[in-house]
């Protein structure tokens, strides 16, 4: 039995000199802008009160803290290739998210992170890349799209399949058009429910997969959305021949720490906060087939 503890210092108690910073203590960030994207979704731009801008990789998340209310995991939605304020796109679904999106400009929030694994979109260089987003799931994918667009020539066919609830819920509308028009991204949008003046597709995002025209054997697929949607999409992709390890999903679990200490995010042997949130379907497939695992 080996102990990681230094037993050689009798009675040593106070601060341990080489102790790393406490990962549970947030750093102060100030809201510089809150932009309303849709009826219930807002993008927050945050600047550090002290210290440098946060460096992060596409797919990572932070623990965002509305002081006195609570702290929740939110993916970073900004452009990792350009230094700028830290961006999070948040859907107003409950106590903490509501406090975050209604906090006034200039208010100080807490930020811990960035945590977790990245999309690693560069693994798709020389290949086709398929992004599949459901609802707010487009926000965590945006940094990977920005990263790809910055080096567009290195990738072959690039497709974004995006499902929203209604036409009013479509996120980043201007950008969707620019990605399609200026950056050679095939953008296909579908909605669950489109009574109004919607002339686009209606139906599940899974139905867009067969029409997307990618080369399955030479494709990287990045998927983010509700778990059920991701399961169907991953199955549709692998059915067409995309290898399981090249289908990546961003998993959502309850997270209280983000750093592998609180135990909440466990999915059998995985700590979704540190082993994920982005995980290859090859690891997830056996776990997602059991109910309530």
């Amino acid at each position, binding site marked *: *039995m*080996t*102990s*990681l*503890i*230094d*037993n*050689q*210092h*009798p*009675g*040593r*108690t*106070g*601060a*341990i000199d080489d*102790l*790393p*910073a*406490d*990962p*549970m*203590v*947030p750093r*102060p960030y*100030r809201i510089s802008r809150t932009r309303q994207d849709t009826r219930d979704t807002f993008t927050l731009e945050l600047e550090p009160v002290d210290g440098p801008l946060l460096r992060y990789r596409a797919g990572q998340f932070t623990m965002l803290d509305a*002081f*006195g*209310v*609570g*702290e929740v995991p939110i993916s970073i939605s900004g452009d990792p290739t350009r230094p700028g304020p830290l961006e999070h796109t948040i859907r107003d*679904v*409950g106590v903490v998210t509501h406090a975050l999106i209604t906090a*006034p400009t*200039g*208010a*100080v929030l*807490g930020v811990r992170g960035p945590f977790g694994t990245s999309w690693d979109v560069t693994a798709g260089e020389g290949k086709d890349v398929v992004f599949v987003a459901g609802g707010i799931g487009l926000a965590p994918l945006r940094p990977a799209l920005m990263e790809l667009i910055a080096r567009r020539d290195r990738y072959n066919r690039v497709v974004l399949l995006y499902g929203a609830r209604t036409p009013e819920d479509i996120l980043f509308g201007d950008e969707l058009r620019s990605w399609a028009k200026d950056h050679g991204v095939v953008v296909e949008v579908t909605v669950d429910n489109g009574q109004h003046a919607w002339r686009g597709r209606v139906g599940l995002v899974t139905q867009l997969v067969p029409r997307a025209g990618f080369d399955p054997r030479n494709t990287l697929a990045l998927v983010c959305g509700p778990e059920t949607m991701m399961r169907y999409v991953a199955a549709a992709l692998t059915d067409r021949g995309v290898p399981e390890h090249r289908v990546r999903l961003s998993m*959502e*679990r*309850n997270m*209280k*720490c983000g*750093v*592998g*200490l*609180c*135990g*909440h995010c*466990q999915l*059998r*042997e995985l*700590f979704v906060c*540190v082993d994920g949130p982005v995980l290859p379907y090859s690891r997830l497939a056996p776990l997602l*087939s*059991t*109910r*309530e*695992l």
Partner: protein
Amino acid sequence: MADEARLIDLDGLQGLIDALSARGYTVIGPTVRDGAIVNAPVHGVDDLPRGWGDEQDAAHYRLRRRGDDAVFGFAAGAQSVKPVVFPAHELIWRGRRTGTEFTVNDRDADGPVAGPPPPYALLGVRSCDLHALAIHDTVLLGRGYTDTRYAERRAGSFVVAVTCTDPGGTCFCASMRTGPHPDGGFDLALTELMDDGPHRFLVEVGTPRGADVLADVATAPAPESDVVEAEAIAVEAASRMGRTLDTDGLKDVLYASADSPRWDDVASRCLACTNCTLVCPTCFCTSVEDVADLTGDVAERRRVWDSCFNEDFSYIHGGSIRTETRSRYRQWITHKLAAWVDQFGTSGCVGCGRCITWCPAAIDITAEAAALRWTPQPAAAGS
């Protein structure tokens, strides 16, 4: 280590407690409280459970008079040392708002201190609980991120281990190869010798600081016969454990049991009361609680023990992942006996038996694991 072994008597044990106190340690050891063995600050041998033993079985715990003077003659108490080094409630930070500013202070001087002041000398730690401490060291310190408060408390702690000489009816550390004789991770280790000779303790030294403390205590060299007797006591104790757990291939058994009908059986008995996780020395799951004063100008965050048996443990917007008791029991036992091996390289169970003793429904982890091993699996669902 046999050549370094020393002997102390009851006065020597008092001397050891005094030597630790003199060095500024709060000595935490077993005491009798509310009909159970409970760790608490001790000042002398008289505070220890002298003459007390225990009787343990599933959903059953009772102290009994031993009819001798043994001070460590009982098995695992209601709690391990987990609450000392990893308190159930702990302040992480306190913050103050002034206008739009918010300052966070993680070492607020006027923050409440949970329990008696550190550093701690942990007296009478069983081998199972030593292994549990080593597991917490891996979980909380040995990976990417560190629980800094645990690190401080743990590094400052002095450990006096003790060999279990009279294991309980729910013990199975021998199966888990975690006891009953402490094999490392201590500063000093005691084996209580209660033969026809004088009441005495064989002392093994684990660290230089252990030797340093022992130098302040009146000791005698241990004769070879006492070293042999201590070993024999541990071997004999190992043969008297009330339970066994077959760990052979257990990880695969549990992973393959995800859809076992056995979960419905155990769920019909389990109350999801969380007792098992609260008494388990290796359970480490926590939650956070935010507290703000009425003005909203002072906020603090506390870390609190949590349990995978709570429904909101797995809550995400839209509903909990594990709504049913069967899923939560499956999560608990699969984590302990299987996923833990993948995550940390050891079993998450050290065989202390507490979860069996303190389960009001008498659910027995060893019986459930055995049942899962022998329950036929439903045919694979195909997806």
